[in-house]
């Protein structure tokens, strides 16, 4: 009797936790379909009006283009560097391997705010970089550790006797790499790229200090919009972002397993 009451109570509590996690996102989606110009949930009159407004807002459009450019270039630069590093780490038998692994996690461990500020200081002292270059150099640091992680996770499940078998059968090292190793670790690499791209696209902490008046990323233009306006067009643009994120999350879970990305287990 007591056990069943406890179980029921725990079930309700867990349901509450899932609601807590999802309710702000659900509310953003709901608010975006409201016709009136004040935020209210649930909507009194349904409409797609604010999607039109959001897509006509030049700040959002320019921000989206900047974010897209920065995230794409950062991912393209960080991926080969990260894949090479993962291979190096995988092959390494050095006693410094653990230290090197920790070193590669530095961009995750150091808070984004601190990374952004210290990059701002150094780039200002060097006085060379312009808006996009500054943003991209910061965003490479966002993408890189995740590409290393996911590639390494794929490599750790790789059976080394496969390469030995290929070598015995006469494959050249290049053939082994292209035909045996790469196809097996490809899901890991792609998962790292998608994940790094999302984090780069969504980033505010590092970008906050690297944007200037002409190059502003989408999350930052949403943030400054939130500080001064409060109409539902921000809900509409956020809903589009949430939609894109959910689709990529599903893809990642199918391809790689989300838990491995975060917990490393």
């Amino acid at each position: 009797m007591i056990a069943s009451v406890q179980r029921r109570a725990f079930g309700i509590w867990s349901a509450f936790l899932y609601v807590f996690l999802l309710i702000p996102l659900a509310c953003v989606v709901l608010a975006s379909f409201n016709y009136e110009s004040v935020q209210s949930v649930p909507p009194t009159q349904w409409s797609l009006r604010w999607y039109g407004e959001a897509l006509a807002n030049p700040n959002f459009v320019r921000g989206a283009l900047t974010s897209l450019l920065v995230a794409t270039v950062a991912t393209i630069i960080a991926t080969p560097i990260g894949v090479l590093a993962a291979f190096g780490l995988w092959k390494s038998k050095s006693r410094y391997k653990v230290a090197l692994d920790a070193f590669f996690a530095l961009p995750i461990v150091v808070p984004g705010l601190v990374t952004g500020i210290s990059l701002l200081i150094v780039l200002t002292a060097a006085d060379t970089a312009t808006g996009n270059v500054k943003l991209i150099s910061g965003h490479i640091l966002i993408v890189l550790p995740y590409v290393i992680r996911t590639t390494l996770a794929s490599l750790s499940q790789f059976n080394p006797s496969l390469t030995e078998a290929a070598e015995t059968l006469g494959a050249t090292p290049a053939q082994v790499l292209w035909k045996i190793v790469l196809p097996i670790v490809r899901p890991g690499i792609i998962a790292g790229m998608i994940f790094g791209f999302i984090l780069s696209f969504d980033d505010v902490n590092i970008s906050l200090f690297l944007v200037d008046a002409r190059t502003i990323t989408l999350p930052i233009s949403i943030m400054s919009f939130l500080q001064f306006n409060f109409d539902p067009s921000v809900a509409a643009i956020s809903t589009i972002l949430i939609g894109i994120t959910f689709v990529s999350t599903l893809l990642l879970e199918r391809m790689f397993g989300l838990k491995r990305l975060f917990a490393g287990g």
Partner: protein
Amino acid sequence: MTVYPLGAALPKRQRTTGRISRAFGASAILTMPACIVIGAGVVLPLTYMLILSIQAPDPGEVVLTTSFTAVNFVKFFSSSFYLGVLLKTIWVASATTALCALLGFTLAISMWRTSARWRGLCVIAVISPLLVSIVTRAFGWMVVLGDNGLINSLLLHLGIIKAPIHMMFTNVAIIIGLVHVFLPLMTLPILTSLDRIDRNIPEAAGSLGASALTIGVKILLPMVTPGLVSGITMVFSLSMSSYILPALMGGADSGMITTLIYQQFVVTFNWQFGAALVAVLLATSLGIVGLLIFETSRRTNKWMARR
């Protein structure tokens, strides 16, 4: 990192060391680009900033000089205003971490007990908020907690309250937002620890008459300590250094140390003092987290050596 002591000179282990250094040579070349990127992008800027914090304030100037001074730190530690801000930041981060630990532990247990079929869905529900931009999530909480928001309109509709309760732009709003952001980061390491537990153990305890609560607190909790500690470490240091949520949900004058830091860099251009504030922030969160890890390992050792 890439410098390997050339132990190949040792005659006794020549063959093996030779192979190791050859293997390491290849991996040194492979890891080199990433080392350079992280060295130039994180280590060097961080060092530069820490040196800047011991330079005399000079608005708009970032070039280092050879004269060092502690004037920025004296300014910080001699002012009750700045110390108050630091204490408030520690308080908010601790409250966030404690709530996250409580919610995260129960959420992880509930995920652990979910059947394999539903588990993927649960993991998506927990992780997807993590992938949504922090700005969107802050906005979501504005919609939930605002004066015309979900909670107020629900309570007004049900006739429980007569006028909307102000929840936005308070400390409670900041803490709710931070807990929401960091809950997944607490839950997942705990879940990883739980996955290593033999499911027969809690079952055995149950069949010997332990209640669900006893099993949770006396059996599962000690066994997930590694995950819990890594979650606490992560959540505490990230809450200490969070800027966006306090700025958006606590209003402009939220009084967190990160707000002060932002002002120094973007408004008053006193970068030397700003760098000192960052140094204080890093030292405080490293100190508290270090103390926690030290204390846990001491207790674990004591527990292992008992009897």
